């Protein structure tokens, strides 16, 4: 167990180093950092001096080491576009993305899992067929189109909900939350649904496939042969075994929610990290891109690590193999 965790940890560190190398390469070689920092009227000597101060004349691996040292301390330099420390920018916008992601993850799982289980158990019923058709439509609807449709219906035609921004937010010790005001909650509804729908369709399909797989397993056939009630078979045996892979799904979900938050935030002008990232790409604002990349990679690595360890804890078969 300890060996397994250590091995995974070593892999995670390796992944982070590779991502850091990419981020460093971005920072160092895409465009000239000095050019991006100074104005038109800076003399060549001043440029050379700045270059020296920034350590851009040192050996590449020394620079990479310094980059990692800075990154670990949360120092990513200044945004080229906004002239503010990148870390501050990300910190300001993190709460918005976090609240949006958590609400949609809960929505997607709370609706998606029961729907998936139902469609697997009642494969031929009309309701589950329509669920599956709907989920196919959901997969074919790009996230941004769902957002646009919601805006058109509830924002423009019915005028029920606000169409952009976060509404009024309350600041609690540096954390801004939209949960405590009416306009904050109203603003959250459409972005959260937009982000949740695609994830939900994925959850439904994955749970259904997983459950069908388990229902075909020998131990389920054996349970049926023993004459257990279908209730016991379905929920105590099948669903329990389905939930192991579901953990992986949830882990992946959180990851893809962060990725798709970029799109949702862009549609609703939601002031989160994703919007910041898109603006950074459009303006080739490398420090922001590099920092966002590292942050996202870090979140992903941590989630994967947690899921792997949980897998190990939950599934006894893996524990035996691991020895």
């Amino acid at each position, binding site marked *: 167990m300890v060996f397994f965790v250590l091995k995974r940890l070593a892999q995670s560190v390796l*992944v982070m180093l*590779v991502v850091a190398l990419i981020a460093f390469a*971005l920072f160092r070689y*895409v*465009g000239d950092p000095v050019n991006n920092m100074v104005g038109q009227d800076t003399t060549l000597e001043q440029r050379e001096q700045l270059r020296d101060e920034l350590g851009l004349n040192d050996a590449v691996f020394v620079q990479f080491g310094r980059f990692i040292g800075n990154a670990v301390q949360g120092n990513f330099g200044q945004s080229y576009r906004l002239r503010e420390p990148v870390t501050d920018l990300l910190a300001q916008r993190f709460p918005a993305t976090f609240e949006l992601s958590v609400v949609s993850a809960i929505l997607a799982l709370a609706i998606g899992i029961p729907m998936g289980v139902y469609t697997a158990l009642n494969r031929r019923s009309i309701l589950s067929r329509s669920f599956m058709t709907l989920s*196919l*439509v959901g*997969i*074919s*609807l*790009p*996230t*941004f*189109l769902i957002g*646009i*449709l919601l*805006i*058109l219906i509830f*924002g*423009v035609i019915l005028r029920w909900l606000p*169409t952009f921004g976060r509404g009024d937010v309350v600041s609690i010790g540096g954390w801004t939350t939209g949960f405590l005001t009416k306009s904050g909650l109203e603003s959250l509804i459409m972005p959260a649904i937009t982000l949740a729908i695609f994830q939900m369709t994925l959850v439904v399909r994955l749970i259904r496939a997983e459950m*069908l797989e388990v229902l075909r397993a020998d131990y389920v056939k054996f349970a049926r042969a023993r004459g257990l009630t279908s209730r016991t078979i379905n929920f105590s045996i099948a669903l329990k075994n389905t939930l192991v892979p579901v953990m992986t799904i949830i882990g*992946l979900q959180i*990851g*893809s929610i962060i*990725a*798709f938050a*970029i*799109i949702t935030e*862009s549609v609703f002008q939601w002031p989160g990290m994703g919007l910041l*990232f*898109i603006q*950074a*790409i*459009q303006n*080739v604002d*490398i420090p922001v*891109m590099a920092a966002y*990349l590292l942050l*996202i*990679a870090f979140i*992903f690595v941590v989630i*994967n690590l947690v899921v792997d360890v949980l897998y190990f804890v939950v599934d006894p078969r893996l524990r035996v193999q691991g020895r």
Partner: protein
Amino acid sequence: MSEVEGATEGSMIGWRARLAESDLLYSFLHSPTAIISAVVTLVALSAAVFAPLIAPHNPFDLASIDLMDSLLPPAWLEGGSDAFLLGTDDQGRDVLSTILYGARISLLVGFLSVIFATVIGVVIGLIAGYAGGVTDAILMRIADVQLSFPAILIALLVDGVLRGLLSRDNYDQIAVYVLVLAIGLSFWVQYARTVRSLVMIERTKEYVQAGQVIGLSTGTILFRHIMPNVLGPVLVIATIQLALAIITEATLSFLGVGVPPTSPSLGTLIRVGNDYLFSGEWWITIFPGAALVILVLAINLLGDWLRDALNPKLR
């Protein structure tokens, strides 16, 4: 059932593949969903390919655009003109025509990036599966790491990097190829993993051993003998990924990091029209959006059917 070619080596496989084909035809003719989605896909494809011939207007011919025609609603609404069936956009371009031309770009990017991803993925999968050992470990580790990040994130990143590396003056002209590169690089992993696992099975079969014994080069064994036997599942993945690639392209273009408005794809059209949503000119956004959804849905349904038909266990 004729068995002319490949009669000796892997005749079993050739025979089975042919049987699967006839099964496929049977299943196709007995699935209304498959037929309808195939017809829709074909119609969309030909509409896109022949856009210059069938589009009522040329939306990019500046001489034929009249600003006086701008923001006209669809023909059946009050104030609409019969000349513009689905209305016009802010520059007086016919929405129907821009959709036809836009679908061309969307499909072009979709097909090119899927082909690109397939080639990379199949080659890497063949090498990893056949070589095994360290090569396999390294290649699959890379694949695992990439797979743990969503494709759209990888595509955004590649797009961002290329944007920084290339000069901005001629970026618009090569935007399509940048997108193909970005989407292709974010989609290869699935092919590689599937092909690898299939190759690991094929590798132990007699026809491969026979090839090795008579001294065929590794390249010949891999590409002439193993590859044809692993392409079935690749086709299924490619169909499903085509839909995904079109969505990804539309998303990137919608986010403003894809195809420029000078030669818009469906995603760019939706982005441009989005600004007019609040002033009530919904048709500029909604029609390209609907076109995108119909196209993607048809391809998805086709892919779904193909997967089920090739994999009877799941039925």
